[in-house]
């Protein structure tokens, strides 16, 4: 288990259900973590700093071989989508629980991914090829029309994106984007995408085995984002007509099948609510944070399936056997202070009481007394609710968030409680910038009953 946090716990549990022994590779800061406690064995791979532990493919492989592991699960983030670890695993006969290094490369380079998908006759967000310098940038931006998004080819997952309103901002933003991309990814290649103002983020969950069988497990709507980072996800997507839903699912399957993808993957699209047209955004070649909403409506354990696929087992069901019922919503509970621009708030949790109830699931690695390390991301838990329909899922989420007690540190729980009382969200009238607009100019009170709206708490 070459990862940490809630996903490490999730994967170790899946292993246990499959009768597979697990070794948790932990940094010094994670020696007391839940993953270290519940794994069959834990091994310290290095200091807290990720570049000296969770990002060291060589050390992780050495740890795997030294402890007799025959497979490595990379989780999400860290090395999950870096071809290096997958490549090293292949060279040394260790199974990488994920797609091939070729697929990781093909989709990891966002320019190459756009090029690839265009060949499969799936619509791609209109944009440019590589933009080399400021001079080229002006020419391209004029041709495309403002506003535009500048994206780093090595980015993805909402990282390395800059918004340009007009030509007066272009030069500085372009140069900053190049410098940041060089720093963050070691690759300053940039490209442009047309900016859409009223879009939803829709993604299709793909499951593909090693014999060429590809199915989808429905789509998710992840439009509730802040600065390109998802906060709330749900399945199925509430905004699509049956025909659009089927088209977008088939587009996802087409991409995975054409590129001979193996393992779990997610094909992300944006859906323009004005024109009802969808476009390919990028593909995530790993298990995703928000996978539980698809599990809840399908009854499929995606992590277990991912492990079985890596063990060369064929998919146990055909597309028609996958039944999607009900509606599921997930909230990410982060150790952040919403009043301070969602600034991370590491520290020791005094009290941690997870909500319970029908249709409520909590995926977490936290407990009372656990120390949230400043070295890693601030995700503490995911609350997932399942209802017969969307309104029941929302009701259960409200109840779950009300019942979630965390003291000692700040969390996003109060903010999320408020969101689930916002009429726009309840009616499903949101887009990818809705949270940002809401934060800039909140509507006068949430509109509904109990609990003070988040803004009053300032």
């Amino acid at each position, binding site marked *: 288990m070459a990862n940490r946090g809630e996903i490490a716990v999730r994967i170790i549990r899946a292993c246990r259900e499959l009768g597979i022994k697990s070794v948790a590779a932990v940094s010094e800061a994670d*020696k007391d973590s839940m993953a270290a406690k519940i794994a*069959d*064995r*834990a091994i*310290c*791979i*290095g200091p807290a700093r990720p570049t000296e532990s969770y990002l060291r493919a*060589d*050390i992780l492989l050495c740890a795997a071989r030294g*402890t007799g592991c025959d497979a490595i699960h990379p989780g999400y983030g860290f090395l999950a989508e870096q071809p290096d670890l997958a490549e090293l695993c292949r060279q040394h006969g260790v199974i990488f629980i994920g797609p091939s290094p070729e697929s990781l490369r093909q989709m990891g380079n966002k320019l190459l991914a756009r090029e690839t998908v265009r060949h499969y006759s799936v619509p791609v967000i209109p944009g440019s090829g590589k933009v080399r310098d400021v001079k080229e940038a002006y020419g391209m931006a004029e041709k495309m029309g403002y506003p535009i998004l500048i994206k780093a080819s090595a980015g993805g997952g909402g990282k390395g994106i800059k918004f340009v309103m007009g030509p007066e901002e272009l030069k500085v933003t372009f140069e900053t984007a190049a410098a940041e991309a060089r720093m963050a990814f070691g690759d300053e290649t940039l490209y442009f995408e047309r900016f859409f103002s009223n879009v939803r983020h829709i993604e299709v969950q793909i499951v593909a085995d090693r014999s060429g069988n590809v199915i989808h497990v429905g789509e998710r709507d992840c439009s509730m984002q802040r600065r390109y980072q998802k906060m709330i996800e749900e399945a199925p997507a509430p905004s699509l007509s049956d025909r659009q839903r089927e088209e977008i699912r088939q587009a996802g399957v087409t991409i995975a099948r054409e590129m001979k993808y193996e393992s779990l993957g997610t094909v992300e699209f944006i859906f323009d609510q004005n024109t009802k047209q969808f476009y390919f955004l990028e593909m995530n070649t790993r298990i995703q944070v928000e996978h539980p909403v698809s599990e809840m409506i399908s009854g499929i354990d995606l992590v277990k399936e991912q492990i079985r696929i890596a063990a060369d087992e064929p998919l146990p069901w055909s597309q028609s056997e996958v039944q999607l019922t009900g509606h599921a919503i997930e909230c990410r509970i982060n150790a952040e202070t919403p009043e301070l621009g969602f600034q991370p708030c590491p520290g020791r949790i005094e009290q941690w009481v997870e909500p319970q109830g029908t249709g409520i699931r909590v995926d977490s690695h936290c407990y009372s007394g656990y120390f949230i390390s400043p070295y890693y991301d601030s995700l503490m838990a995911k609350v997932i609710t399942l209802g017969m329909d969307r309104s029941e899922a929302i009701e259960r989420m409200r109840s779950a968030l009300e019942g979630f007690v965390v003291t000692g540190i700040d969390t996003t729980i109060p903010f999320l409680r408020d969101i689930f009382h916002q009429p726009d969200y309840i009616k499903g009238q949101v887009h990818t910038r809705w949270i940002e607009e809401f934060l800039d100019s909140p509507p006068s009170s949430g509109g509904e009953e109990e609990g003070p709206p988040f803004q009053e708490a300032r």
Partner: protein
Amino acid sequence: MDLTEDEVTQILKWIEDSNFDELDLIMGEIKLVVKKRRDGSAVKEEVAGKAPTQAGVPEPAGMEAGKEKSLCDVHGMKGRAEESLEEGLSAIRSPMLGTFYRCPAPGAPPYVEVGSFVEEGDTVCLIEVMKVFNAVKAGVKGCIAKIFPETGQLVEYGQTLFFVSPDDRIQKKEKHEKNFQAPGG
């Protein structure tokens, strides 16, 4: 009571020439342990500080330690015990996860044995990660009192590799005479 350098050298010589394999000498606060190597040369283990007043063979450092379990032991795996430090001893810990090697090359003599005297900058072992060998420096000065892992064993980051017993008298004497060196060092 102090042992002079000449006296220590003399003792080592006696043992080397004698039929005895081992000598444990306790004089007041000084405890001197000398063991013969297989090739016949004497190896000295000198433990500084207050020696136990009761008679008997002094326990090599860290032998009865081991209350602090490593993560591996917690889960009942066959473990490399991360032994708790005895007073007066320093630990050399692994700076990285990897495979532990005591020798610079197969068949070559180990960098250190129990009883070897090491300086801060001396290499005590190698840790290999994916065919890259990293030399581990002692970081402390003194005598190797205990060696935990065996060659070829996987060691974790922060795992205790050696106990070192710092010895003030040896360090002082060293300043006076360069020639003095603990055999086997």
